[in-house]
């Protein structure tokens, strides 16, 4: 598959322009963690839902690797290489960890009815799942039902599952929310590894410490519009951002 081409990894550019919600446009590149912050209700999760095709956009333009994905359905977008996690975790609760991750390989077989009747437990995929599960630190829980895992593990399972799609762009919606400090730190390490693989990451995060640590570039949203973009230092000193978070001085 084209998406595995490592030379492409380095200079693949995913452009996401999104004036639909009163003008949010930015581009994100492979191998970069782009932070998306903003007060509650700023439209961060909505933005993810638009990119991943959960809501059909009413206008504007979203392009990925030079092609428009505006009219694509959610399952088509994920097959193109945009994977996501959810703000409130959504693993397949009654499937074990291994099977959760295996779901991601199905789309290679769906186009041919005959091939999709073949068994899903196949050695090459199982090996790949093993590697992913290991990277996510879940190797001891391969056969555990997702519903029995603690929150931090579920979040890492979601990332492992998303990585099994072999994405070029990964959308992470508040990965550290609800986690203890050590759990969050482990997750951040996993996200760094993902970036170092050349995968572009869009990160919605409320924990400023985490955002400032991980991201070289940050986009700030407020009321569905982009109000600032820049390095963590620039964002920290931007009066518009301070106003959005703390309110106007009267």
């Amino acid at each position: 598959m084209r998406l595995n081409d490592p030379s492409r990894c380095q200079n693949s550019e995913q452009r996401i322009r999104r004036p639909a919600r009163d003008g949010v446009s930015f581009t994100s590149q492979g191998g970069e963690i782009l932070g998306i912050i903003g007060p509650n209700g700023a439209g961060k999760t909505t933005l993810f839902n638009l990119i991943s095709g959960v809501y059909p956009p009413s206008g504007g333009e979203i392009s990925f690797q030079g092609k428009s994905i505006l009219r694509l359905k959610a399952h088509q977008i994920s097959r193109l290489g945009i994977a996501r996690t959810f703000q409130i975790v959504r693993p397949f609760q009654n499937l074990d960890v291994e099977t959760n991750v295996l779901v991601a390989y199905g789309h290679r077989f769906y186009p041919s009815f005959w091939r999709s009747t073949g068994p899903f437990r196949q050695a090459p995929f199982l090996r790949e799942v093993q590697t992913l599960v290991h990277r996510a630190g879940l190797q001891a829980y391969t056969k555990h039902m997702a519903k029995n895992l603690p929150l931090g593990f579920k979040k890492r399972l979601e990332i492992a599952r998303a990585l099994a799609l072999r994405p070029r762009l990964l959308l992470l919606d508040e990965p550290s929310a609800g986690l203890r400090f050590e759990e969050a730190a482990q997750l951040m390490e996993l996200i760094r590894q993902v970036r170092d693989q050349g995968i572009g990451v869009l990160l919605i995060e409320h924990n400023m410490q985490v955002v400032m640590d991980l991201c070289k570039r940050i986009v700030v949203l407020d009321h569905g519009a982009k109000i600032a973009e820049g390095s963590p230092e620039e964002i920290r000193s931007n009066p518009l951002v301070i106003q959005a978070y703390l309110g106007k001085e009267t």
Partner: protein
Amino acid sequence: MISGYFITILITIGIYAMLAHSLNIITGHAGQISLGHAAFFGIGAYTSAMLYTGAGFPFWISVPLAAVVAGIVGTLLGIPCLRVRDDFLAITTMGINFVVEAIFLYLPFFGGAMGIGGINLPKWFGREMTKPEYFILILVVFVFLLLLDRRVGHSWIGLAWASIREDEEAARAMGVDVVRFKVLAFILGSAIAGLAGGFYAHFLTFIMPQNFGFGQSIVILSMVVFGGIGSRWGPIVGAVILGILPEVSRPIMEYRILIYGILLLGMMRFQPGGLLGPESILPRVFRQSVRRAGARGETQ
């Protein structure tokens, strides 16, 4: 020799097991609740009956065609169901059942309230099949269906169904074409229900719209839920137990729907996974008794 009465019960149970199995594909595997499964059972029965009595098709052609027609109608009726979920889906499928039953009842083309008679058991080797032979035929077909179910269950299709059942939105995010796999479940489930309908018509020799009403749908659903929704053997065990119950005692027969209702309530409250489902009490009881027997063996 097996008595006629006994073989009648066996055949009835065989047909119910096939029905429960087919509903389990839609509701158990793909997670789409259906309260109108008897509609497809009826479509199969009517197709087969009319092809046999009207067009003179032999059993061996009319019954497979019944499955095909039920599968096609199931797909068409399944399309409005794709836009709705959960409780709305339950009501939509229920509505489908009432509409289909009403069409059979009010259109003279389908024989109206009188139904269709004069359907016979299939012929082979130049004579009519005996009832035990018919039962064996149903059994053979059912074994084939179970093998098919096993294959599909371990396949990418089965995995896609499981992901849709667990979380539709997450499934989409994993590249699963939710619409396509839901339609596939409806096709397969309705076609097998239609097949069961064909077998039913040729066994009863006479069918009426009332055989395929909402009550029948609930009976089928009770079997699936009682045995263990989503498991391969659960719905069959459900069909066997709930199929035999009304036969062993008359009072149960008279209060059949009431007893099924109470059973459904009880199962939902205490064993939502069904007799053979996950977290069932049976394996635990079994393991405990084995352990106890083992302990007794050691002390002796």
